[in-house]
């Protein structure tokens, strides 16, 4: 009989003849086999959680090549033995059949063809080469989450593209930009020794770092006073001594009022300011009339309370801090930049930098690098397509972070032809998804995800799946930041689970792609060699790191009074930013009103935040975490009781939320725990890739309602400058 054409999956293994008999090693009976493997040993392998960007240390316990348990690494300064719900949930994603299980090629709208890795590399490499040969290497964009070695820089360097773009403009770019300009980098709070803590724009119990919450809770037990300033009664507020429900968008006024009190009542640390501050007089000249009373009118917080905050900060200084904040304030208001500046200024006024109970820079170290293996030609570097750091465009924006929300615009203008998205899903996490969908108009879009995210489904010509973090070894990381810790720690992800090559790690993906592109030996090292070369200069062997999971280096950041210097032009904390003055701005913060204000009876400012069991949009499809959502009505939109009553709304009612960009429906949570001017939604929901079946169609996302704006100074999206109207009904 003539055989029909077919593509057999099973092959005789290389070097092995066809079996002539049944091997003795074969256990054919499934029940016997399943029983036998129960005797396998449990081993443990260190890794770093991928549930958010905190990189908490964990141990993956492994039995017969599969995940047996995960637990926090006691030695890691982020986890201190604990993982949050996200950490557990995301670990289990490894067995999710909804993963992209092999490379995919688009063959039509919402239609993909599974292809082999070899085919994928050849097609993507060849097409990229053809496009860049015609239009130039600077038309290539690498867009990613950031904060992780991506190896992309080597390729960008060879083709002459400066277009490495991260997601930070949608997250906290105002903070990092401003702190770098004013004091040379980020500083972190000393929870263990502070006597007084103000948290504004940061909810450690929502965007959880387990060790931070452990230490804040311990501080609370010691009697440390904790103040939470937030329009919402957030999770951290539940353990605070006081929750101050500020009018959203007015934290800058509060900070100006506090600074005014500190200075006008002579409560500030004059010695510290004289020694370590540049531009104090200039700042005061512009703000000497911005009293606590004026701040009270804007914030809705009484002048007495504002003065009390200032006096308490001063009374406990330097064992006190205004926590530097995170996502909540630093990409979301027209005044986010000035708010970040005032955070630096208040902490400087109480002189808490480098002081016990105050703020400290992150302890760090420097890794080595594998030797270069590519010595071929390199193209001349082009100019950034997003304009970040470019004179006449966005000169003050950090080029290292970029302006991701501009990618559709760059494509439309022909400035971007080939776009690779790595671990980044702007169609859901960047403003205005319908606008972001224009990304598909690029000549070639490649997505490197784990799951079928919206960017992959709607725009990617090819999907090259990266493996789960427990399936791979990675370049090591310095564990630091967010929390004061006197010594840097070094940790890494090691391959914990059985090797499966349905998906690959990023280094192997880039090796395959660049070879097909025509660049030989650009990444002429293995991940093992990369790790050894990285750890070499600090005297740690990969084996030692794998054995211990996390290694702490010698103590390098301790409280000090002598020898304090800041990594700025004046070596002081600069209250006035010179780069701003050069671009025609004042250089010091002054009051700036929010861009938009709710006016009518049914108008609200739409704000958002993290839930303790989700990590923005990246966990929305996790069945375990979504089960928590179901238990707690997690998709509900919060609304102040008084405002809800006026609209005739009660708990669980359906409402229609609308503005000129979008109209969505959702259910409301009616609560006293929210400022009346706003409604609050978790940043998690609104999945519209129906391949993500656990999250699909649940709730909505704030990005649906905001345009892709670009702040002129730091490039952020002003994500909470958004007014919506709300009406009853609409399911």
């Amino acid at each position, binding site marked *: 009989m003539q055989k029909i*054409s077919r593509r057999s999956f099973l092959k005789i293994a290389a070097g092995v003849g066809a079996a002539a008999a049944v091997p003795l090693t074969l256990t054919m009976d499934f029940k016997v086999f*399943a029983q036998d493997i129960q005797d396998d040993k449990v081993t443990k392998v260190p890794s770093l959680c991928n549930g958010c960007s905190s990189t908490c240390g964990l141990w993956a316990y492994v*039995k017969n090549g599969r995940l047996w348990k995960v637990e926090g690494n006691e030695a890691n300064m982020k986890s201190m033995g604990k993982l949050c719900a996200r950490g557990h949930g995301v670990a289990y994603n490894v067995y999710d059949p909804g993963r992209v*299980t092999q490379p995919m090629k688009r063959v039509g709208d919402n239609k993909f063809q599974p292809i082999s890795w070899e085919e994928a590399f050849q097609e993507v490499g060849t097409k990229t080469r053809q496009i860049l040969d015609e239009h130039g290497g600077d038309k290539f964009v690498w867009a990613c989450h950031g904060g992780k070695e991506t190896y992309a820089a080597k390729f960008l360097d060879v083709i002459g593209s400066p277009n490495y773009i991260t997601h930070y403009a949608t997250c906290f770019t105002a903070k990092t930009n401003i702190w770098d300009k004013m004091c040379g980098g980020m500083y972190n709070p000393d929870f263990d020794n502070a006597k007084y803590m103000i948290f504004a724009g940061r909810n450690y119990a929502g965007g959880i770092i387990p060790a931070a919450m452990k230490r804040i809770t311990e501080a609370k037990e010691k009697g440390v006073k904790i103040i939470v300033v937030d329009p919402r009664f957030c999770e951290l507020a539940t353990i605070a001594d006081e929750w101050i429900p500020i009018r959203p968008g007015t934290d800058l006024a509060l900070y100006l009022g506090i600074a005014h009190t500190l200075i006008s009542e002579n409560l500030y640390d004059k010695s510290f300011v004289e020694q370590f501050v540049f531009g104090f007089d200039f700042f005061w000249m512009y703000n000497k009339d911005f009293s606590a009373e004026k701040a009270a009118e804007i914030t809705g917080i009484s002048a007495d309370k504002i003065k009390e905050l200032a006096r308490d900060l001063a009374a406990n200084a330097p064992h006190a801090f205004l926590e530097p904040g995170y996502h909540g304030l630093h990409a979301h208001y027209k005044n986010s930049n000035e708010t970040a500046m005032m955070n630096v200024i208040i902490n400087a006024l109480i002189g808490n930098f480098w002081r016990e109970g105050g703020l400290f820079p992150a302890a760090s170290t420097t890794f080595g690098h594998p030797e270069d293996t590519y010595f071929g030609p390199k193209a001349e570097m082009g100019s950034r397509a997003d304009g970040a750091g470019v004179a006449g465009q966005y000169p003050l924006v950090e080029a290292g972070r970029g302006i991701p929300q501009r990618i559709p615009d760059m494509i439309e203008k022909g400035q971007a032809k080939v776009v690779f998205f790595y671990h980044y899903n702007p169609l859901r996490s960047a403003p205005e998804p319908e606008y972001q969908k224009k990304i598909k108009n690029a000549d070639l879009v490649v997505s490197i995800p784990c799951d079928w995210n919206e960017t992959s489904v709607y725009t990617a010509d090819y999907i090259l799946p990266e493996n789960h973090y427990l399936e791979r070894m990675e370049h090591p990381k310095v564990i630091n930041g967010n929390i004061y810790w006197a010594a840097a720690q070094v940790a890494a992800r090691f391959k914990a689970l059985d090797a499966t090559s349905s998906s690959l790690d990023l280094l192997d993906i880039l090796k395959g792609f660049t070879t097909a592109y025509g660049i030989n030996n650009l990444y002429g090292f293995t991940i093992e060699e990369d790790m050894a070369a990285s750890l070499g200069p600090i005297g740690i062997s990969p084996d030692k790191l794998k054995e211990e999971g996390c290694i702490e280096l010698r103590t390098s950041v301790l409280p000090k009074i002598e020898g304090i210097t800041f990594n700025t032009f004046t070596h002081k904390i600069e209250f006035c930013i010179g780069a701003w003055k050069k671009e025609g701005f004042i250089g010091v913060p002054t009051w700036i009103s929010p861009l938009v204000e709710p006016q009518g009876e049914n108008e609200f400012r739409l704000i958002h935040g993290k839930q303790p069991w989700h990590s923005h949009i990246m966990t929305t499809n996790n069945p375990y975490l979504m089960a928590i959502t179901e238990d707690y009505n997690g998709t509900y939109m919060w609304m102040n009781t008084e405002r809800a009553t006026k609209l005739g709304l009660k708990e669980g009612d359906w409402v229609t939320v609308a503005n000129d960009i979008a109209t969505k429906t959702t259910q409301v949570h009616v609560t006293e725990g929210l400022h009346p001017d706003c409604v609050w939604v978790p940043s998690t929901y609104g999945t519209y890739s129906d391949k993500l079946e656990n999250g699909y169609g649940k709730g909505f996302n704030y990005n649906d309602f905001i345009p892709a704006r670009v702040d002129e100074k730091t490039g952020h999206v002003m994500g909470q400058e958004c007014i919506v109207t709300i009406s009853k009904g609409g399911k």
Partner: protein
Amino acid sequence: MEKIKKWYGVLMGSITEQNKAYASLFIIFADLFKYPEKENYNELLNGEIDKQIEQLSRLAGHPIITSFKDEIGSYEEIVQAFNDCFLGITTPFAPPVESVYKVWTTDDSFQVPLKNQKGHLLGDSALHIRHIVQALGLEIPTEYEMMPDHLTILLELYSYLNQEGLISEAEQFKKDHLDWLPDFYNSLIKIERNQPYSNIVLKLNEVLKQ
């Protein structure tokens, strides 16, 4: 010969024409769960697949009649059905993978919540298939390492055992690893565009039950 005796227990059984036909039949079914290339589509459309199934099943002593040619539309439609059923740009979808339809592990020592659940990859059954494949000196494609118990691989393996005359092993294999097709079918029929795949599963189950 001594070395062979050391490593191998049961010598392979004699292979009859009936075995060969039966084995070939499952190769044809295995092919139907791969991405539909145009050539395969044409073979479905012109009735060649139905004809081969009819001939092979008769020779194998398990006669069945199929009419897949009447159940497929255009090439674009079968590609869409493959996407919807197995890749799933719409939900729900029904991955053709045994682990998904069985409890992940019977090893109660595991401390992950999925241990007693269905719906996950790389369950006990996948480990068993990986074990069988390796023991027989076979290999599966790199892209399927995460799902060695993909239906195509199971059917090719079942075919291989029959082809090699390992009849009792094949029977054991069928009992252990091809018993989930009714659950798979039930998942498929929840998908709007489930043809021709739901009918293929029905016919496959029919011939396996004979």
